[in-house]
Structure formats: structure tokens, C-alpha cells
């Protein structure tokens, strides 16, 4: 089981969290201006990288907050967790790079 460091509550067992998919996929401000192609991409296309992945979690059975994490999908090692609305931490490798 993963131990995940909630930015508010600290390290907690995975059971208390709900995974929320890829992070930084912002909902378009005015979806009506998007082409079908772009809207379809927003809805469904995901990076799904092998290596570092910016993703969302919610501490649903804890403080209830959504937050973001950088996790290496080849090791499940968490490189960082950070608050929703804040940018990906500076100096971290790109998607698909390895974390260590």
C-alpha cells in the first residue's frame, strides 16, 4: 500500500485517498469555443507516461482536499506532493522522466 504525504495532514495510508487522474488538465474557460477534436482531447486523452507523472489525489477520508503529486509510475515513488492550483515544483524532471 502506498503511503502518501497529504500536503495538509502529512503521510497517510493510500486507503484514505482517492486517485483523481492526470493533473494540470484545466477545464477550458469557454468549452463552446473548442473544436470537437480539442474537446475530445480534453475529455479523454491522457499522457499516461512511464516515469514521472503529475497527478491528482483527494484525501477523501482525511481533510477532504484535492492536491497534486509527482509520482514515478515505474516505481510508485512519490517525488513531491503540492497544493492544487500551484504549479509543478520547479526543478523536477518532465513527465516520463525517472525520479531517481
Amino acid at each position, binding site marked *: 500500500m502506498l503511503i502518501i504525504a497529504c500536503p495538509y495532514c*502529512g503521510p497517510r*495510508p493510500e486507503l*484514505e485517498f482517492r486517485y483523481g487522474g492526470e493533473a494540470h488538465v484545466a477545464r477550458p474557460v469557454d468549452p463552446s469555443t473548442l473544436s470537437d477534436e480539442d474537446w475530445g482531447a480534453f475529455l479523454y486523452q491522457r499522457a499516461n507516461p512511464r516515469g514521472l507523472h503529475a497527478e491528482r489525489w483527494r484525501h477523501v477520508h482525511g*481533510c*477532504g*482536499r484535492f492536491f497534486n503529486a509527482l509520482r514515478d509510475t515505474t516505481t510508485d515513488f512519490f517525488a513531491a506532493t503540492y497544493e492544487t492550483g500551484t504549479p509543478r515544483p520547479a526543478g523536477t524532471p518532465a513527465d516520463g522522466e525517472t525520479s531517481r
Partner: protein
Amino acid sequence: MADLSTMRTPAIEALVTASPASHLAALTALPPRTRFSFRGRPAAVTAFGTVLGFDLPQVACRFAEDGARRALWLGPDEWLVTLPDREATAFAGAAATALAGLPSSLVDVSQRSLALAVSGPMAARIINAGCPLDLSPDAFPVGMCTRTLLGKAEIVLSRTDEARFEIDVWRSFADYVWRLLEEARREFV
């Protein structure tokens, strides 16, 4: 027409009545209390503290209390506030006045949940039968509180004493939580 406002049917009366005693791990149902879920922006948080009589705790997963009033930090803008039923009406009125115009949310959730206490030297061990947290005093000291899981039910767990925990659980999950704790307690009764 009869006034039924004092007639309450608790969720797990039969289980409580049938529960065996144990000095190693006692399980008790706590009397009803008033509960408010409070959410809000910083200005409202300050104003609410004034009504409450003490500041809402800002440290994650800690509760503050004064007399019979308690405020539990549940999230960065979320507190569960408990107080005696007899103070509820006056408190709600004062809070509404103090919070007027300040972005916030105050919701009465008094009967959404009920409270249990697990106490005695084996209390942490009993709770750990269903709860994945480290309940050693270093990791979960007196004064700590948090939402977490007990088996397949969500609870709010607080440590009020070295050997005493309180569990706040939604009404319909109380039966499950009580039975699970009884199952864990069997070897100590």
C-alpha cells in the same frame, strides 16, 4: 398534539445495552451533543472564534476546547464544532449575526453522527483492528483528531487522553462500527 421534540430514537441502543464491560477496553456511547460543520474564508474564521469563545485551531489535525465546547480541525477550511444541546439555539443565533456578510457556511449536523468512546489500556489496539493509522502517542498524541477509516466506515477519531479515544461516526454506520469494535474487543471482556 403531542410535543415529540424530546423523544429521540438513537441508532444503536440495543447494541449499547448488550455490550459487555471491560476495564482493558471499554466501549461506551456518548450522550447527544450539538454539532456544526463550519467552513469559511479567514475573516469568517476569526469572527466565528469570537462567538465560540476561543480561536479555531489552525494546526492540522488538532482540536481545541474550552469547557464543554470543542472545535476539531478537519481540513484547512473546515471545522467540526461540538457543544451542549442547551447552548445550541443561542449559539446558532450569535454565529449567524457574527457571520453576516462574511463568506462562510454553518450547517447543523447534530444528528448526522453519534459519538462513542473507547478507553482503557487496550484502546489503541482495539481501534487499530480496523484503523490503519499509527496510534502510538508520538504519532497520534492527545489533542489530535482526524477523519480516517475504521474498517469500511469513515470516522472522525480524536484522542482525548492517553488511553481514551472518541469516535464520531455517521448514524447509519454506527451499527457497523460498534460491531467491529466489539469483535476486536472480544478477547478483553
